């Protein structure tokens, strides 16, 4: 009368039964997607703030944005987009049992993240050397809208940078797993999950970039 655990008939059109009682890749991906929503909303809250403040301080934002270096911003955008490529390719590679290729791509990915962060370090250092940092006298002497702009700039790009770092650590752990054959062409959902995280970090930057660097 009751079903055995291991036989797995489909129960509905949209639900595929877990084929192995202790492993459900769809559940793993679903969990990661739900977690991504929380990250999306975390940054979403800040985008709300940005929008309202920009709406109320159009001139000031325009002026303040001139301090940002569009070239570095564009380069960083290209870097992140390319790192998303290597991420997606590394999964495609492991799907085809190309272990070495996958590992290489993952490592390149982490390297791209590092370059992004180094660029960011130079950007911030430059601004700080100009006296444009929270609580500095120069900043406090500027227009209120400009103070808010830089506040948002540091917090949003800072939080984003932190997520890039987390992503790099996550992918490094996956690289380790791939080397140790914990991630294989038959079991790579962990890599997919890490990839999803990385792509979200990329998407957030896709919106940060024009809003901070291209409003001049």
């Amino acid at each position: 009368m009751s079903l055995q655990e291991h036989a797995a008939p489909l129960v509905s059109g949209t639900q595929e039964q877990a084929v192995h009682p202790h492993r459900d890749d769809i559940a793993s991906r679903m969990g990661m997607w739900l977690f991504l929503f929380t990250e999306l909303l975390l940054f979403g809250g800040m985008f709300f703030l940005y929008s309202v403040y920009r709406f109320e301080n159009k001139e000031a934002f325009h002026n303040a944005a001139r301090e940002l270096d569009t070239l570095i911003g564009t380069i960083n955008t290209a870097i992140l987009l390319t790192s998303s490529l290597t991420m997606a390719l590394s999964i495609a590679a492991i799907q085809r049992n190309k272990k070495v290729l996958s590992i290489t791509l993952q490592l390149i990915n982490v390297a791209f993240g590092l370059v992004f962060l180094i660029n960011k370090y130079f950007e911030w250092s430059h601004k700080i050397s100009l006296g444009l940092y929270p609580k500095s006298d120069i900043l406090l002497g500027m227009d209120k809208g400009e103070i808010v702009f830089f506040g948002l700039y540091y917090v949003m790009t800072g939080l984003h940078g932190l997520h890039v770092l987390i992503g790099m650590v996550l992918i490094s752990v996956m690289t380790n797993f791939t080397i140790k054959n914990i991630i294989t062409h038959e079991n790579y959902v962990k890599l997919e999950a890490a990839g999803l995280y990385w792509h979200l970090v990329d998407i957030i930057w896709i919106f940060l970039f024009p809003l901070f660097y291209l409003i001049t």
Partner: protein
Amino acid sequence: MSQAAVIHTNGHPSYLDNTGKYKGLRSWIFSTDHKRIGILYLTSLLSFFSVGVLFGFLIRLELLTPGKTIMDPQTYNSIFTLHGVIMIFLFVIPGIPAAFGNFFLPIMIGAKDVAFPRLNLFSWYLYVSGGLLALISILLPGGPADTGWTFYIPYSVRTGTNVLPTLFAAFLLGFSSILTGLNFITTIHRMRAPGMGWFKMPLFVWGLYATAWIQVLATPIIGITLLLIVIERLFGVGIFDPALGGDPILYQHLFWIYSHPAVYIMIVPAMGVVSEIIPVFSRRTIFGYKFIAFSSIGIALFGSLVWAHHMFAVGMSDTGQFVFSLLTFLVAIPSAIKVFNWTATLYKGSIQLDPPLLYALAFIFLFSIGGLTGVMQGALAVDIHITDTAFIVGHFHYVMFGGTGVGVFAALHYWLPKMFGRMYNIKRAKVAFWIFFVGFNTLYFPMFVMGWLGMPRRYYDYLPEYTIYHQISTVGSWILITGLIIMFSNLIIGLKRGKKITEKNIWGGETLEWQIETPPIHENFVDIPVISSGPYEYKQNEPEYEEAETENGSKRGEGR
């Protein structure tokens, strides 16, 4: 007669026995068994609740007389801040999902555990850490936060009290809530037993599902908002500070975008509990199953759109106010649908007035009062008059305490016997209920009156004309607490020395938890059941109930 054919679990050890590698306390705090985690949550929740009740008791004691009664104003501000933080973040928000959702969700859908058991345990660790951090903030130099649980700018950036640890605590608790919601959504989508379609799920599960979505989507907003206050206090970044170009109203918007949906995180699971209890204790199938199921989703949806009704008096634009007032009226509709359907279920049912039903009925009564006063507040002209008065305090205590709190008590009386295989004294439970009920209304109803007459909230001192209301209210708090003490001691004594129950179906329910062992075995089921019917399919005539009663012997426990 139940959702599945007979389920055999003979010979398997109960989840309360230690079969793993850990013994004693460690077998509990390292356990990934959803039932044990549910109990871990339950004990921590009720402990924090007691602390919150203590602070409430002290508030009412201070307000017994105008001017100073037992404490100075600074202490008073901290006490009501902590009362709010503890009750909201440590009791009412996690409450039913963390304790009863964790314990019963997998069982009710025919699963052996949640989708991510280790994440579940981690959620509990976050919860306890957050709770301890909040309590520690009381002892650190600087004194506990005095901003009110709403942390409004600019005071929260300027005050020298321990706002930082409190904010960190709230952040940890939010993270715990998010992970629970994430776990539940995945569990409900992926782990239902064969035959358990969406419309065969118990309504409690529907409630948990709707709640889980609010937890996942809304909580991050307060996460970032509180984080921004932390950053402002630590680095002077100036996101909200008006002196640096920030906008305090924007803070309030962001704060309430979470904190309003949060109240639906609080109430929807409690409504789910009521939806479970009403059919069982009226021996009738629930009236309008689909309407109740969809109304949970409706509340989650509409509840996310009304937040600024907390801000009608702060300087919003007229347009904003009209929009939010209208939406606030609309959100009452799905809740009303539930109340109508519960009432229709009871009508001409075979009513068993046991403690779970008493609390469920109290829920309907008290929540209706709270909900209707909420609609009153949604009217702009009325709200200008009563906002930030004791009227609001009365309103939210009726819905949060008379709603969710009573929902917790109902769940305890309904499910504790199944969880532990011990029955409490039913007579004493009923006595405790009535004392609590009288105390509750004596404590909170005067707040509507004095608020209407102009008594502000969060005020340490007040004009002599309000004294009589405060005195009635404080006496009510003593009666209420007496009721709580009797209730909890009855339950605890019941756990230790109550009659042992081995029968599976204590109350005559049809959902899966009543078809398995009392207490459940470690894996809930030996084999995953196949579901063939809905969760509340009682027959209209009585023979099966009679048959079941004689079959199981005295299934109602002692004291009846």
